[in-house]
């Protein structure tokens, strides 16, 4: 199984041939209606969100949009989100909480957009507010890292009751190139960085930082469908206080220190 190197996985996770957000929406949900905008400034196309039916459950679906062709990638800013995108996501989650809809997020991003406008519009504030809101949201949430889950830009959609990764997805504090340029002062050592960072689904499952790995291949969507149905039913049975408290403890217990 483990024949691919970590860096090969990084490259595979970034591949344009992998399913994108609309593929997941089309295959797993019915009647998707896309909603737009943060009601503050603009609609960020790097985040797609809306409501749909999952079996007989109304759900809110939110995900990064990378695009597949070069034109699409430019239009969606390569899946790099600005504050407006995180605020749109939060707006849709506030709405989901109000109407008791579970929130399902699909994560695939090289990270939050490092641009001037993104900074002056409060990139830090937008991400931080998402983390805070998701951590205490009174409705179930499931996050699925489908490709590249990089930095705070990925986490901003992933403070969820369940965090899953596709078999060949990666989840990391920063891109391996960025990591190598900071710690090794040489972005070309990204392959070495990928190993040291322990960013594959298999590494992270072993650490207990994610809850499940979804096998890829022909049966991936079927597996995803049945896992979603099973876990949503479980989570929807919990009372709201217990749901939020369990989620709080889930992240609270992530430690690795001497005491």
């Amino acid at each position, binding site marked *: 199984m483990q024949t691919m190197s970590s860096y090969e996985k990084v490259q595979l996770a970034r591949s344009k041939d992998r399913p994108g957000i609309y593929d997941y929406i089309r295959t797993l949900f019915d009647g998707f209606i896309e909603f737009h905008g943060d009601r503050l400034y603009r609609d960020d196309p790097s985040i797609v969100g809306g409501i749909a039916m999952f079996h007989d459950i109304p759900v809110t679906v939110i995900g990064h949009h990378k695009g597949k062709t070069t034109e699409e990638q430019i239009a969606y800013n390569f899946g790099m989100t600005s504050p407006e995108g995180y605020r749109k996501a939060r707006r849709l989650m506030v709405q989901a909480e109000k109407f008791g809809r579970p929130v399902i997020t699909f994560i695939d991003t090289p990270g*939050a957009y*490092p*641009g*001037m406008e*993104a*900074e*002056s*519009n*409060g*990139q*830090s*504030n937008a*991400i*931080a*507010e998402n*983390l*805070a*809101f998701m*951590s*205490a949201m009174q409705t179930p949430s499931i996050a699925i890292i489908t490709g590249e889950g990089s*930095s*705070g830009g990925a*986490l901003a959609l*992933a*403070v969820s009751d369940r965090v899953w990764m596709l078999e060949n997805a990666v*989840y*990391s*504090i*920063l891109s391996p190139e*960025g*990591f190598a340029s*900071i*710690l090794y002062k040489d972005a070309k050592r990204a392959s070495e960085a990928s190993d*040291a*960072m*322990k*960013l594959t689904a298999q590494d*992270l499952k072993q*650490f207990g*930082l994610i809850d499940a790995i979804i096998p890829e291949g022909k049966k991936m969507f079927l597996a995803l469908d049945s896992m979603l149905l099973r876990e949503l039913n479980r989570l929807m049975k919990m009372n709201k206080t217990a749901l939020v408290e369990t*989620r*709080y403890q889930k*992240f*609270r217990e*992530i*430690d*690795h*220190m*001497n*005491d």
Partner: protein
Amino acid sequence: MLLNDIFSQRKIMWDRMAQKRKRGQEKVKACPKCKTEYYSGEWKENQYICPTCHAYMPVPAKERMANILDENSFKELFPQISTKDPLDFDGYEEKLQSNRKKTGMQDAFLAGSGKINNQKVAIGVLDGRFLMGSMGTAVGEKIVRLTEYAKKKNLPLIIFSASGGARMQEGLFSLMQMAKTAAAIEQFKRKGGLFISCLTNPTTGGVSASYASLGDIILAEPGALICFAGPRVIEQTIGQTLPEGFQRAEFLLEHGMIDCIVERKDFRDTLSSILQMHL
């Protein structure tokens, strides 16, 4: 040269000679901006503000506590917490050891309780000298424990941040500290707690994008760099140089991201005034 200038130059010379007699054994440190040299005791007495050009230097966590809190009121909490190096990252253990030796701290966060004009607070300070004040598992755990302590004891929570962001050497464990600290702060605030977040130079990346941006009230020191993406990363991405003052405290104030800018010497009084209105 005017007579006055000669006198003032003389005065500076005499002053330096007096300082040398008094502090001969102390280390000398030059201001990075104007290059004037001062003894470590002089830096301390001036709250790490350059007496010549008024540049702000980083304040060691212990000194910050001393500047903000009533005399002898600080009681340290959770001093024993340290990281277990979750990724077994090459060279990290040595880095930790040398930073511990340099700062006398187990990790970058100093937590405790204390009093400001007799009002009790839970207070924490990120020390930028310890691996750039980066947040790994030890820092995240201490912030959460301090927040839970404040919640349990019904105390206002004050945190001074100075950080390069999440600690790279602990990989995804560090990223998760963003979620963990944000979650703790959110619970504290929802229970009615007052969180005052104080941003100092620099507050960036995973610290800026988690608990530090979640203050009920956000204060910042003048000129502090406060951002998610660092200036160098942005310049590389957009291929142009950034304007003067971009991502500085004054810029954030103008863009509505912080409540006010407070001079270092006024911080204690400002905090005290805010606390007075939250009794």
